[in-house]
C-alpha cells in the first residue's frame, strides 16, 4: 500500500523535476518546481517527518517559489524569450553528463560497504518501530519520542545540543538579508547635500564618545 503511494509520489516528483528543467516557459517551470517541492514534502510524510514536511511547504512553496516568481517577473527579457530555450547543441552533452552522474550514484547505492560493526544498509526495508515494544534499545525509545513529538523535540534540541549551529544559521540569515538589500538597492544618481553635510560633521561628533570610552578602560587597568 505505502509502496504504491511512494511510487506514485516519486513518479510525480521526477516528472515535475523534468518539467522544471526542460520547460521553455519560465513561469511554467516555476509552477512545476512548486509541484516538485510538494512531492518532496509528501516523501517527508512517508518518512514520518511531518514537521519537516510542514517546514518544506512553508519555506519552499511559500517563500522560495514566490521569490523565484518575483525574479522571473522582474527579469523578463525585453528581447523575447530567446534565452529560455535550451540550445540544441548542448542537449546531448548535458543529458550524457546527467546520466553518467546518475549511473555513478546508482552504482554507489548498490555496492554499499558498511563500517565495521554496522549492518549494511543495502536493501534495508525495516525501520525502527514507532510503536512501543518490549525490550527495545534506548535509542529506539528516543527516536520514537522524537517522531511522535517532533516539534517539541526539535525546539529542545536546537536550544541545547545544536545551539551553535542555530546561532550560526541566524547570523547567516541576517547577513543574507543585509546582503540582498545592499545588492538590490538602487543608488541615487546624485547624493543630497544634507547627507554630505552630516557626514562631514560625523568624525567631529564621533571623537567625543570614543575618548570618553577610553577613560574607564584606563582607570580599570590602573586599579
Amino acid at each position: 500500500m505505502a509502496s504504491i503511494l511512494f511510487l506514485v509520489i516519486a513518479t510525480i516528483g521526477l516528472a515535475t523535476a523534468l518539467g522544471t528543467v526542460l520547460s521553455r516557459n519560465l513561469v511554467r517551470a516555476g509552477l512545476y518546481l512548486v509541484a516538485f517541492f510538494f512531492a518532496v514534502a509528501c516523501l517527508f510524510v512517508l518518512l514520518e517527518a511531518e514537521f519537516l514536511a510542514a517546514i518544506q511547504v512553508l519555506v519552499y512553496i511559500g517563500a522560495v517559489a514566490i521569490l523565484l516568481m518575483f525574479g522571473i517577473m522582474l527579469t523578463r527579457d525585453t528581447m523575447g524569450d530567446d534565452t529560455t530555450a535550451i540550445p540544441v547543441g548542448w542537449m546531448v552533452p548535458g543529458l550524457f553528463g546527467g546520466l553518467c552522474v546518475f549511473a555513478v550514484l546508482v552504482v554507489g547505492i548498490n555496492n554499499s560497504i558498511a563500517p565495521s560493526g554496522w549492518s549494511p544498509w543495502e536493501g534495508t526495508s525495516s525501520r525502527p518501530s514507532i510503536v512501543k515494544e518490549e525490550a527495545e534499545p534506548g535509542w529506539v525509545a528516543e527516536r520514537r519520542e522524537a517522531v511522535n513529538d517532533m516539534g517539541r523535540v526539535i525546539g529542545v534540541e536546537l536550544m541545547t545540543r545544536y545551539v551553535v549551529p542555530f546561532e550560526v544559521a541566524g547570523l547567516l540569515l541576517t547577513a543574507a538579508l543585509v546582503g540582498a538589500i545592499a545588492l538590490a538597492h538602487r543608488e541615487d544618481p546624485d547624493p543630497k547635500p544634507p547627507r554630505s553635510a552630516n557626514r562631514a560633521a560625523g568624525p567631529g561628533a564621533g571623537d567625543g564618545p570614543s575618548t570618553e570610552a577610553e577613560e574607564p578602560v584606563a582607570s580599570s587597568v590602573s586599579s
Partner: protein
Amino acid sequence: MNNDIPLNWFLYFAAASFAIGLVGVLLRRNAIAVLMAIEIILNAANVNLVAFWRYGTPAPGSGPLPGVILAILVITVAAAEVAVGIGLILLCYRRWRVADVDRYDTMSG
C-alpha cells in the same frame, strides 16, 4: 504500517532528482532557471538525509534526530541562497539588461 518501502527507493529518487537538477544547471542559460535547478539538487540531498535518519541506526551520543536538524539547516541555507541569488540576478539584469549567464562575460579576459 508502512514499513514496506525499502530505503533504496528513496535513495534512487534522490539520485534521479539530483541528476535532473544537474542537467538543469548544465543546460539552462537563464540565471533564474539555474537557481531553480540548484533548489532541486538541495531537495534531493534533503530526501537522502531524512531517509538515512529514519532507517539507520544512530551513532552513539548523536541525539534523537540528527538528520532532521541537518535538513532544517540545509533549508535555511537554501532560503538565504535564493534571496542573495535573486538580488545578484536583479543587479546583473539592471546592468546588462539580460538574465542570461552566457552574457555575463565581463570578467572573462
